[in-house]
């Protein structure tokens, strides 16, 4: 019982503290802006921090690589942070970096674990006076325009990419026949948007039928097993496989190979992981979509660097929450995506927002 009470007391205190922090957060943010308008930092004072989930997948590894390349361009180094997909660990790391060094010249380029993780991250950064750029996840009602240190939120139109690969798939199967869909984790925005894109494409092509749609949780091994089951269920009726990410597409490819159907069934995915690009150039996969991980890793740091050194006035940016351009990769252009590389010109302060395709609706 005593332990229980103690726990309860701790929890209550924790909640109170959190509420208090939240309150002072927005307040002190305003004063920070008044005291020190952007541009107070010398270039060598800027601290660049890139934070992603982990370095064990090619996409996030490429992201950090892009951050390193930008850092090299401005003769700095990027501090790499990874939080293993644990929200609590991510918040702790953010607290750590905001508690050390010259925070006002710190720049964070962050991949929040989930939508709700973005709120405390931007509030803390605002309170500490550090520049922050977030990508992929944020709650719909949280807007960078309400903060002066949260420079931008960059994401990608999942409906658009889902539709792009669906069109590529439909073309590959000759405009008619049956396809199956491998969905991602069903309660994520990425899975929902991408699938909505597929449905939009199917609505334009009534002669293509969706035989089945199942979830493989964005996971390669699950997609392998699931595809084998779907091949048993529908057999040769399956002309194409639409997967909500490349890992699942690659799992499907392995299932097709085991069934001796490699190359006979069209497969599409999203993310442009190296194995998928290789499969696209080899002809076993039809298409994938790239968000350009190295660019994502560099651009957030570049925005922060430009703002911190006074070359970018945050208040003049027209849209700070925007969709960025994504690239459909087919056999024709697979070679140029085979080795992820960054174009330093895109990180020039004048070019930071060139890839914006529109505000997040």
């Amino acid at each position, binding site marked *: 019982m005593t332990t229980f009470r103690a726990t309860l007391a701790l929890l209550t205190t924790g909640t109170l503290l959190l509420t208090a922090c939240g309150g002072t957060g927005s307040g002190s943010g305003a004063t920070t802006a008044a005291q020190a308008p952007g541009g107070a930092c010398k270039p060598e004072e800027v601290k660049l921090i890139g934070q992603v989930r*982990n*370095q*064990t*997948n*090619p996409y996030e*590894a*490429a992201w950090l*690589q892009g951050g390193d390349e930008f850092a090299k361009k401005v003769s700095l180094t990027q501090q790499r942070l990874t939080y293993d997909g644990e929200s609590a660990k991510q918040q702790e790391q953010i607290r750590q970096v905001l508690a050390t060094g010259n925070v006002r010249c710190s720049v964070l380029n962050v991949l929040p674990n989930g939508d709700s993780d973005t709120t405390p991250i931007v509030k803390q950064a605002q309170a500490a006076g550090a520049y922050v750029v977030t990508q992929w996840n944020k709650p719909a009602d949280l807007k960078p325009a309400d903060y002066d240190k949260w420079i931008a939120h960059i994401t990608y139109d999942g409906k658009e990419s889902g539709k792009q690969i669906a069109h590529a798939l439909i073309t590959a199967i000759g405009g008619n026949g049956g396809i199956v869909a491998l*969905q991602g984790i*069903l309660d994520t925005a990425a899975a929902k948007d991408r699938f909505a894109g597929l449905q939009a494409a199917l609505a334009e092509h009534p002669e293509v039928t969706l035989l*089945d*749609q*199942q*979830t493989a949780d964005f*996971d*390669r*091994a699950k997609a*392998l*097993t*699931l595809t*084998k*089951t*779907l*091949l*048993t*269920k529908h057999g040769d009726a399956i002309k194409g496989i639409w997967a909500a990410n490349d890992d699942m597409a*690659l*799992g499907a490819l*392995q299932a097709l*190979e*085991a069934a001796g159907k490699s190359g006979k069934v069209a497969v599409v995915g999203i993310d442009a*992981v*190296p*194995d998928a690009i*290789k499969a696209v150039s080899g002809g076993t996969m039809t298409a994938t979509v790239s968000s350009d991980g190295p660019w994502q890793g560099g651009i957030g740091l570049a925005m922060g660097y430009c703002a911190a050194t006074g070359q970018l006035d945050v208040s003049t940016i027209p849209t700070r929450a925007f969709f960025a351009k994504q690239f459909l990769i087919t056999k024709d252009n697979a070679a140029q995506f085979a080795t992820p590389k960054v174009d330093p010109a895109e990180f020039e302060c004048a070019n930071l927002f060139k890839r914006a395709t529109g505000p997040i609706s």
Partner: protein
Amino acid sequence: MTADRLQTYGPTAALLALAAVFAVLSPQFRTLGNLQNLLDAGAVLAVVTIGATYVLLLGCIDLSAAGVMGACALAVSLLVANSRTALDLGPLGVLLVVALGAAFGCLSGALSVGLKVPSFMTTLGVSAIGLGVATVLFAGVQPAVSDPWLLQWASGRWLGFTRVTYLAAAVVVLAWLVQRHTRLGRYATAIGGGEDILRLSGIQVGRYKVGAFTVAGACYGLAAAMVTAQLGSGIVQAGAGLSFAAITAAVVGGTQLAGGRGGIAHSMVGVLILTVLANGLVLIGVSPYVQRAVQGVIVVVAVGATLWPLRHRLEVVK
């Protein structure tokens, strides 16, 4: 029917009932092709569950599969012919990886026996070490396996069944023999039944415990090689979620979390139940949005029904 018998045959009856229902509802379910597919799909889980079962019999919990398999998957993909290193060790590479898995298992066992730390803590720690090793080996570039011998495990077929299936079947038979006819197997059950009594009889309990963890680790190493053959590349997440799937399978099949009861045969029935369930629900066309919930309900009902007559005897539920 006595309670003991029910515990032994209940899960088997549940498996048969499930299979019968799916066979009636889906013509594709009752094809030979689907049987081949089912056994292929269950092969990796079977090998992982064998490992987990040895530890469960002791009354311990092993949560290290995710990390150990991650490290072993990366290791095997770098040791056989691959896109990143110049090594081409073939079968020796797989043996080395089984040994690596065994070493991880031995570490888990030694830590929990030596330091008297609850096994789920030490194995979670070892899992984290394994994931760390995997991350270092991964180094930002996914190694793709090009060794035809290893890739044949997943794509080559004998009599319509994949080699992975035969491998899993061989491991099941071997594990069953070890459990029935060797000291390691018999003591594992006895330790789970009453460790203190065995200790008082002068048996070196610790040694057998470490042995069981080591066997489990070796199973995870082999399972990692099987996943790598199936997926064609070394993947850090090769064992993600498999610890819990394996423990679920073991318990559904009648191996008890408290130790001392059940065994390889029970656990394998559990593996088949989970595999048939996942396969059958897709084949009869259950919407993916409710599939997981349906799976959960069936598992809970199956376990509940099996244990219902035993509920008075099992006074302690941990």
